[in-house]
């Protein structure tokens, strides 16, 4: 395709080192045990290029768990905007698809300034997925393992080189100044990409079609006894919401540092708690756990398609890893499908 490039693997670290001069470079790094986490890179060689698909979602860089919004004092109010420029290297196709949906959510009728200012300063270099995790199920949702569009830069690992594809102005800007590192692609490169994509797809253990689940719920074939059994296993940890690359709920709180000075901030919140919808006078509209579990699944399975034409799930499998009660999206879908 026009505008695509090929990057020799030997040149990757040079390119990233150049980018790090201008950006806070975030990439998957090895950590305690065999953990791989997204962290600021201090040594390019520490980047875990061969890591499995499931690394923590990059959501926190554009929608942090705790974000200060305003500083207030008797003199006035300062809006705090994060202006740090970041390149996040090594995110997966599922996460890229999630970011695209987040952009639509935080844009829209009311544009969320805090999200947008972070988003504008964050550039993603995603890697087409060649070694999916056992928990991954993006193939059934069209959110991976390879993306055709909706990324800044997508790298496809072709053995000794990467096929570099760009789908945004921001993406192209990261390559522009380093043209001498990149070569023009040949047909063989695309053939190899096609093969790699097929081989990757064949590695997926889970085949889940959420559409079947949606139809079943819409047809009223899933009764409350099913959701009751799901709710029973809910530990109310909120992990599914915190880990989900698409969950957006937040709480707003004020901290008073002195009587006339303080900060207003927002924190991730979760609809899995009964207090989430609590009204003054201790009225709890969603007191029963079943209401809250249904709410989460219905939002993702029924209302997301209504609002955005897409499921509120990208098949990343993180809820599968984090849910202590083992009642994640994949498990539910498997039971219902």
């Amino acid at each position, binding site marked *: 395709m026009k505008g695509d490039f090929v990057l020799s693997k030997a040149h990757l670290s040079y390119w990233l080192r150049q980018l790090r001069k201008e950006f806070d470079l975030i990439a998957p790094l090895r950590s*305690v*045990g065999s953990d791989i986490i997204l962290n600021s890179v201090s040594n390019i060689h520490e980047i875990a290029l061969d890591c499995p698909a499931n690394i923590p979602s990059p959501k926190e860089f554009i929608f942090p768990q705790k974000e200060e919004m305003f500083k207030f004092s008797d003199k006035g109010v300062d809006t705090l905007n994060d202006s740090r420029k970041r390149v996040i290297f090594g995110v997966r196709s599922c996460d890229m698809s999630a970011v695209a949906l987040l952009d639509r959510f935080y844009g829209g009728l009311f544009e969320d300034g805090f999200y947008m200012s972070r988003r504008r300063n964050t550039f993603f270099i995603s890697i087409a997925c060649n070694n999916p995790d056992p928990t991954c199920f993006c193939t059934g949702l069209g959110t991976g393992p390879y993306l055709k569009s909706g990324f800044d830069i997508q790298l496809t690992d072709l053995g000794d080189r990467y096929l570099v594809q760009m789908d945004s102005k921001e993406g192209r800007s990261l390559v522009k100044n380093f043209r001498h590192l990149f070569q023009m692609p040949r047909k063989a490169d695309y053939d190899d990409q096609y093969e790699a994509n097929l081989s990757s797809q064949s590695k997926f253990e889970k085949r889940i079609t959420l559409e079947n689940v949606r139809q079943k719920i819409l047809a009223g074939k899933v009764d409350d006894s099913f959701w009751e059994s799901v709710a*029973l*296993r809910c*530990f*109310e*940890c*909120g992990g599914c919401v915190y880990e989900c690359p698409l969950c957006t709920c937040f*709480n707003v*709180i004020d901290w008073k540092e002195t009587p006339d000075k303080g900060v207003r901030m927002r*924190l991730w*919140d*979760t609809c899995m*708690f*009964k*207090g989430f919808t*609590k*009204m*003054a*006078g*201790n*009225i709890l509209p969603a007191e029963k756990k079943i209401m809250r579990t249904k709410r989460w699944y219905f939002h993702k399975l029924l209302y997301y398609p209504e609002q955005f034409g897409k499921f509120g799930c990208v098949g990343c499998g993180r809820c599968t890893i984090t849910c*202590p*009660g*083992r009642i994640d999206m994949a498990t539910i879908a498997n039971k219902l499908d």
Partner: protein
Amino acid sequence: MAGLASAFGSGAMTNSIDEIDNARVLFVIGSNTTEQHPMIGMHMLDAVDKGATLIVADPRQTQIAKFAHIHLRQKSGTDVALLNGIMNVIISEGLVDINFVKRRTENFDEFEKIVSGYSPEVAEKITGVPADEIKRVARLYATEKRAMLFYSMGITQHVTGVDNVRSCANLVMLTAHIGQPMTGLNPLRGQNNVQGACDMGALPEVYSGYQKVSDAKARRKFENAWGRKLPAKPGLTLTEMFDGALNGKIRAMFVMGENPIVSDPGATHIREAVKKLDFLVVQDIFMSDTAELADVVLPAVSFAEKEGTFTNTERRVQKLRKAIRPMYGAMPDWKIIAELSKKMGYDMGYRATHEIMEEAALLTPSYGGILHHRLDDFGLQWPCPDTNHTGTPFLHRKKFTKGLGTFNPIDFVPPAESADDEYPFILTTGRIYFRYHTATMCGRTSTLKREEPECFVEINHKDAAKLGIRNNNKVRVSSRRGEIVVNALVTDKTPEGIVFIPFHFREAAVNLITNTAVDPVAKIPEFKVCAVKIVPLLPKPGMRQTVLYDKKNDIKILLDLYEESEAEYEG
């Protein structure tokens, strides 16, 4: 942990958490694991999913009890009778591991004499648990090799706490469920470093590693290391300290990161005691109720600002890493004490926490190989006697710490206070999921605070109906020691005759009314059993009720029409 020590010689979880997944029988007594130790609960559910049998003994219908294949709802404070009943069946049906009992334990005969008096029928009378259930549990637990036993505060916070633990130990030895992976006796400890605080000798009668202060040899070792003469007489326990303060024996107190005024039973008594002190120093990260009464308050740092180690309930010593610089003018606790010590003429000379650990390792056999640089990934489980040792996932493999395991013959003793006409309910207290201890930390976490902002009393719906109490009504709960006013939470979680109040709330400190009677050995106060009466407070005058008819379920719902109304927002 006195109960465990008298049976095995050391008090800690004998096995590891990640063994739970592959156990075949899980017997959980007095622990609402999925709420109080959620991550251990997670392992238990995994085991259940793999086909393990879960047995829960708890008077309350807790979350973990809902997953139980067998749920024994024994009367509060009758755990000993229940366990004796189970052991009676094991003995009479020949399910005892004779080999193990002969080779590795002592005092079986004495023990058998007592247990023989607890036929399942006798146990049923005391505990209210059907004899057949007792028999079923006995057979299940005794015949499965990979059977783990768990207990928590529901067992220890009784006048008979030590007896309860010893009974558990008896059961484990009787069936040889110890010294093997996926077996053992596993206390689930409440606070993150309770285990460590005990291990490190923050106890009146022992140095680190449970070396007795009365033992001259141990004392000499510490005296040599520290270059000071050390006292040989065991000190006062927490409860005795406050009694001492009241009668003038204790004149000064140093409190590091604790808030006994809210956490301890008979809170009024403690407040009085603390007020009588000549000098009180409190070191904490927030202004606590106890700090309010102090003469000096020292700002310490939180877990995120310091280095050190925590020991979890499975004896895993793990490294705490500093994430941010100390906030404001705060100082790490160890530094404050070291400074103080220096000022008093004893320079401890530590420059960093790993040096303290080196000293502790030198003086503590079970921590001998535990040094900071060896804890990088997921820490080490003690005993870890030297730097080549890789830790111990389960204890008592070949022999018990004290040699032979001791059977303790234990008779059932009724709780110190039982329900009567004047105080017809049994009150039990405990933790709830969204709160932790006295709320100095979670009270400053918006989500946790929002979920459970107010104290409540759980009462069975039948009892509530008898008393004319509806959900969210204010009630007065009073015992012989005090009273509090809380909201009623009408539920079927607690059985009839029992009410439950979480102990986290300073506004309604349930410890104002709990029993100050303490276990004679472990000195653990009796939180779990106390007789109370409950009086509904009259609804506000002018409140009006309306009846809503729920067609689907054919029930009438009584509603306080305007009581439930008026939020901050109407449009």
